[in-house]
């Protein structure tokens, strides 16, 4: 098997793939069902995967339902994302022992065993590509993140069952991996679940992926398999209910910073930060020092949210003291200034922020509302002569 060749992996072949990954020393993580949701967990065999589960998502709503089939990937995305394996939620960057006027600094290792991700969605692959650019693509990279990413083996599974929150098609990040827009990292393997008979269409993206297909005894795919894959993807595209119009979006938001919609959404937004927690590209982090009486100091980095009022604290007060200004920051960063800062969109259309918002705020709806009233002034002008306010 060479890179780019397509193959068929039987369902039993999945077990072989997983066993091979374990043999090669990977800690393999994949989607599992726990606490009523599809979340990342340790995966050893295909039996650990969410067979016969389907997710029903809506603004502020997520439910897993049992369906009477053996489809392993008949769901869209859960609340967690693969970001937490590489951009760790809480980590110690260095430790210092301070004694008698000398300081000795030690740096903990970035990770132990390399990680194999078994079942990343195309939108999650795109999200990792965005994070690669943010955290490792600039002049000063996050070397811990980069080391974890470099050692990882990534198996993507394309989507056949988008949820109603999904809008990856309009973001160019799904349901297929070669969906076009945005920076994409390499995947080692990409699978598409096919039915009748139940099997997986597979393509290797790297030599390591090709080698694994060979070792798993994968057969070459047929034209029939290729057509079946296209049908699945086309079905996913047609089934996608939401979309985000991206044409001129960055400039649209940049010229509508005083739009009345910001105040309107602030009457609904709780500033809870759930959206930033579930978003696969949000990267804000607090960097804090923790010390104890023995003289040990640890510098810790942990996930933070721009919805936290202290996030923008600047000697004396927060620069963004209102929910309105913080919601505006989140949305304009994700869809507009991310382009200025990193030359890519920050959003991959996974829909998590819509599903996991407790009040069901929909990013696609907010953007559309501003587009529909482009240029609306912040407050109604005074009656009478025009003001320059």
């Amino acid at each position, binding site marked *: 098997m060479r890179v780019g060749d397509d193959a068929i992996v039987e369902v039993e072949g999945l077990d072989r793939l997983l066993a091979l990954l374990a043999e090669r020393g990977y800690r393999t993580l994949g989607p599992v069902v726990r606490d009523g949701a599809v979340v990342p967990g340790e995966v050893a065999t295909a039996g650990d995967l969410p067979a016969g589960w389907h997710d029903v998502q809506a603004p502020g709503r997520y439910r897993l339902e049992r369906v009477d089939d053996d489809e392993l990937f008949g769901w869209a995305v859960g609340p967690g994302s693969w970001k937490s394996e590489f951009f760790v939620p809480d980590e110690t960057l260095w430790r210092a022992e301070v004694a008698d006027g000398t300081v000795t*600094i030690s740096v903990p290792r970035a990770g132990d065993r390399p990680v194999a991700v078994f079942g990343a969605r195309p939108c999650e692959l795109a999200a990792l590509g965005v994070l690669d650019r943010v955290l490792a693509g600039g002049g000063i990279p996050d070397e811990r993140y980069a080391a974890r990413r470099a050692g990882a083996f990534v198996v993507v599974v394309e989507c056949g069952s988008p949820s109603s929150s999904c809008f990856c098609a309009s973001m160019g990040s799904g349901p297929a991996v070669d969906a076009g827009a945005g920076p994409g990292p390499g995947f080692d393997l990409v699978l598409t679940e096919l039915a009748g008979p139940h099997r997986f269409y597979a393509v290797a993206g790297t030599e390591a992926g090709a080698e694994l297909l060979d070792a798993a005894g994968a057969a070459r795919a047929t034209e029939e398999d290729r057509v079946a894959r296209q049908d699945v993807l086309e079905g996913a595209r047609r089934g996608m209910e939401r979309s985000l119009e991206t044409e001129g979006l960055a400039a649209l938001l940049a010229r509508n910073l005083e739009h009345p919609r910001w105040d309107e959404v602030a009457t609904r937004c709780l500033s809870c930060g759930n959206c930033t927690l579930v978003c696969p590209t949000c990267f*804000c982090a607090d960097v804090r020092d923790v010390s104890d009486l023995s003289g040990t100091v640890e510098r810790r980095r942990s996930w933070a949210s721009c919805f936290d009022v202290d996030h923008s604290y600047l000697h004396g007060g927060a620069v963004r003291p209102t929910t309105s200004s913080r919601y505006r920051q989140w949305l304009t960063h994700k869809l507009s200034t991310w382009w200025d800062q990193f030359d890519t969109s920050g959003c991959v259309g996974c829909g998590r922020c819509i599903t996991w918002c407790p009040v069901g705020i929909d990013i696609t709806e907010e953007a559309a509302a501003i587009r529909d009233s482009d240029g609306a002034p912040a407050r109604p002008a005074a009656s009478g002569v025009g003001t320059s306010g």
Partner: protein
Amino acid sequence: MGEAGALVPEPYVVVGRRQEAEDVVTLRLEPVDGVRPAFRPGQFNMVTSFGQGEIAVSMSGAARAVEPLEHSIRRVGAVSAALCAAPIGAVVGIRGPYGTSWAVEEVEDGADVVVMAGGIGLAPLRGAVMELVARLEAGRGRVFVLAGARSPDQILFPEDLRSWERAGAHVAISVDVGAPGWTGAVGVVTDLLATAPFDAEGARALLCGPEIMMRFGGRALVDRGVDPARVLVSLERNMQCGVGLCGHCQLGPVLVCRDGPVVRYGGLADELFMERNR
């Protein structure tokens, strides 16, 4: 410490300290090992007080390699208070240099340079003014230093201000409120522009201080005829990693630690300054 990366500080020892004002201390620092990296005035380091935390502080000393690293720190919180109290011999952590500079080396020969500083804002400009005075002494252009302080006892670097004036720089200082013995100007620093005889044609301006000062000062300079693209300001936002990875210092499209702190006024800061709660 190459493999440790930019998130790990280098130990530096305090070799000198100077009380500049009641709440401002200048620390002179030398690396425990090796030589300090080169920097350009306007840039900043992330300075760690082991046990309290880390803050962004601009370099306030000369950039010449023979000079030790200087940071003038204003006591506004726990970390800055600890740094202001650091005795000679204390070890602090330094990461940097980061950010953009005043780019004094790019100023064309013959151009007048106006430096407007408000309060602690004179500290990030000090290294640049030293270079501009050297440029003046070499006959390559004039420099006009306009410094504002709250009161006479809060004027920073008075000896430097005097020596710059002796070297031929135009130096004007004003305070918001006078005090007994003060015979200098009392008023806002932007009013010092009126009596600064610089030629707006081809002039450059460097501004550093409270955002309101830079906002009003930038406008006043443009009203005077200075090309807004030649006016530079130094932005400030909550900074935690200093290297563009933590997202805290965003101001619209700008990551202050990476695309700033020094940015051009015309076509960028002038708009950013008008965006409320951004």
